[in-house]
């Protein structure tokens, strides 16, 4: 009996010691809020990446342990969750919900000197409003999206365009960058419309756009249902001007909810299905989970593999060493055009290569080929 108890005690001690050996990484995601459709697949990609890393022996001989919290994309609770994760021993926080929530978390990570990164947020202001040396952003910025779309649009000789977005925080932020980019290129915005969340039709907005006779329409909204309303009104009115969209239309859900409406729409994406890294990722993900991944999974996967690489280069789970390693990182992942690398030159903390986005086109109801890459 005594031998058995001793063995159990030793096993418990060993398990405890092993638990201490993990490297804790905090993840703040959105499981029930407005960002859930984006955060959930991205977090699935992140968890898959962590499992792959652990299967290959972990980082610095230690397993990665994810501490996952749900902030519902609410800035008011997001900072408290960041604090909780730091108190639980997280050496890095990966932010997977909306831009305003990520911004709020920075107030904690900056004060606690804890590295934080968002692999999917696209608001340009995340790395400019706070001088937080512990924060990085690797999602494609709104300004890169519009610049890439405009580079593609330049080949179409556009003179006057319409811009439509929605009244979400991110939709408004993207619309601002779209407008600035269009005006900088000398393209006149002849109609600018906003879709309210919860609208049941886009017909008034599309009538105004039709009356302005634009050469093309740019969509900056991020609310799927409202974007589908726009596409429905566009088809219903038989409009012919081309549509160029933000990366929101790169989410595959449009292939089902906008069936029959989306043929010919071009959209900016950070995912090139012909890229070798993408093919390898898709194959591994399918084998491990039985499900087909898409671009959002890639954001999460790149996030965790990049953080793991930074910790590996730091040589120890020390926050200051990780910060230095992260800042000097140059990393090729799943996302981005062929050959793209994330990097943070000259002290910048937004790491997505400005020439790393692609423009794709819907062919029928399917996300089709890459028709343009970069901004040149």
């Amino acid at each position, binding site marked *: 009996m005594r031998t058995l108890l001793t063995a159990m005690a030793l096993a418990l001690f060993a398990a405890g010691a092993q638990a201490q050996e993990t490297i804790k990484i905090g993840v703040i995601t959105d499981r029930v809020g407005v960002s859930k*459709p984006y955060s959930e697949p991205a977090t699935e990609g992140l968890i898959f990446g962590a499992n792959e890393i652990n299967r290959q022996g972990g980082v610095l001989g230690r397993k990665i342990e994810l501490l996952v919290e749900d902030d519902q994309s609410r800035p008011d609770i997001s900072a408290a969750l960041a604090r909780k994760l730091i108190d639980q021993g997280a050496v890095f926080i990966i932010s997977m919900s909306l831009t305003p929530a990520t911004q709020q978390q920075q107030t904690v990570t900056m004060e606690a000197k804890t590295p934080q990164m968002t692999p999917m947020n696209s608001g340009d202001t995340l790395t400019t409003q706070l001088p937080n040396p512990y924060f990085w952003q690797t999602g494609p910025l709104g300004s890169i999206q519009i610049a890439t779309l405009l580079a593609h649009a330049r080949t179409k000789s556009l003179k006057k365009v319409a811009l439509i977005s929605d009244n979400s925080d991110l939709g408004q932020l993207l619309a601002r960058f779209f407008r600035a980019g269009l005006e900088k290129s000398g393209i006149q915005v002849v109609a600018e419309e906003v879709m309210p969340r*919860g609208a049941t039709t886009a017909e008034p907005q599309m*009538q105004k756009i039709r009356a302005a006779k634009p050469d093309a329409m740019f969509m900056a909204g991020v609310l*799927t249902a409202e974007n589908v309303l726009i596409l*429905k009104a566009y088809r*219903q009115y038989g409009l012919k001007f081309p549509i160029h969209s933000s990366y929101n239309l790169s989410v595959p*859900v449009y292939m*089902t*909810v906008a069936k029959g409406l989306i043929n010919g729409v071009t959209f900016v994406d950070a995912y090139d299905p012909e890229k070798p890294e993408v093919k390898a990722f898709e194959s591994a993900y399918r084998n491990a989970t039985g499900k087909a991944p898409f671009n959002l999974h890639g954001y999460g996967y790149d996030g965790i593999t990049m953080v793991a690489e930074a910790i590996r280069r730091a040589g120890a789970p020390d926050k200051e060493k990780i910060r230095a390693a992260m800042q000097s990182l140059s990393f090729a992942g799943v996302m981005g055009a062929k050959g793209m690398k994330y990097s943070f030159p000259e002290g910048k903390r937004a790491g997505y290569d400005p020439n790393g986005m692609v423009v794709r086109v819907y062919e029928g109801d399917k996300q089709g080929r890459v028709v343009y890459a970069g901004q040149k």
Partner: protein
Amino acid sequence: MRDFLELAVSAAASGCVYGLVALAYLLMIRPTGIINFAVGEWAMLGAFGGFLLLTRFEWPYPLGMAAVVAAMLAVGWATERVAVRPLVERGAPPLAPILALLGMLVVFREIVSLSFPPDPHPVPYALEIQHQSFFIIAVTLAVFVAAWLFFERTITGRSFEAVALHRRAAALMGINLSRVTALSFAGGAGAAGLAGLLVSPNISAHYLMGVPLAIQGFTALVIGGVGRVEGALLGGLLLAFAEQLTARYAPIPSGYTQGVPLLFLMIFLLLRPTGLLRARS
């Protein structure tokens, strides 16, 4: 002129959806005095019912529509049994069932959120895309005519009115209050579920679709007044026309037009707080 006619059809269809949600509120408020903000989530359940039966199982539209409405009647009845009746029987204050129903709102939303992937789900049109608005208008008018006939021409409907006028006196006259309450919740859920089903081909079935519909329906109810069935439809139509005409013609930046219907509502509340149509004495 073409723009105005297109917009009139679009606004009438949106107004009918708001009117159905307002009717759902009204059916419960009149006999019980309970404001049930979970009607938006009931509309969401109706939309998801449409997704399951019409998209996934590809049932014929009339059969799927009838099944969704029948299921929603059962949901409303069950909601009353679970969240309202126990409180009323224990003599809880009037606010208690309203709060319990707010809890049910979260329960409904989370059940759907956990049961379905987070993306919007497509629901097919009953007719071609360009005829869907006319279908919504026709179905809504049929529902309102039926509701009006029920309240004006049937004994059961009159018993609802009696309860609305004076609960205790109605009970003393032998009207079964529990039955009236259960029926009002079943009818409310049926109307809300139908609204969700009708609007879902446009906005897709989505777990966050309930709250905006609940707000729009409540606004329509306040405009039309809680006194008469036709007030709900009138309120819905006025709200939708205000929203869409403002968005199309008002000479203000597009971002500001969303506040105009609410401004309209506040002015309305100040000038005519009982709504457009008053209850018959």
